[in-house]
């Protein structure tokens, strides 16, 4: 019972979700701009 109280009193910080979001944004930027510059290179 004491362990559960300790767990609930810890401030929650979503490290995994933030890491996933940052990686997702970086991958989107890389994918989008790689296609974008490919198109610009064909002008």
């Amino acid at each position, binding site marked *: 019972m004491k362990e559960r109280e300790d767990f609930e009193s810890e401030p929650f910080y979503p490290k995994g979700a933030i890491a996933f979001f940052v990686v997702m944004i970086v991958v989107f930027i890389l994918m989008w701009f790689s296609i974008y510059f490919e198109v610009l290179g*064909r*002008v």
Partner: protein
Amino acid sequence: MDRSEKIALGLSGGLLAIFFAAILYASAVLDIQVPTCITDVEPFTSDSIIEIADNEYELHMIARMWSFQPSEITLPAGSTVHIYVTSQDIIHGFKVDEKNVNLMATPDAVNYMKVTFQKPGVYSFACHEFCGVAHHTMAGRFRILEPGDNELSGGEI
């Protein structure tokens, strides 16, 4: 709303704004176009290439099973080509290698796109819409000559 959610929403919105600004820049400053369907002209029945200004040409391209007319176009480097494509039978495609040109050739309609060939070389084009048993043979090419090369022959221009 949690602070993390606000940051995530702000980043997402900012990223979308950057993507949109990049598209506007490509369209307005670099003059990158998308294919246009010309609805107010009758489809032409014969192919032609006409010089409408210095280093600027108008190409009327006809697609049919299983060839393009004209299939070989010779132009000087730096040429800007206004490409009008139509089909005389079924739906075909018109895709130029190394360029952004990607059009559909449709019966009873004319599709348009503009392209500039700055570098000399051979730019192949092909049908990219499956159109029958000899679809894979339906191809042609732009031959872009070096400046000063007078090998403009074959009745292309």
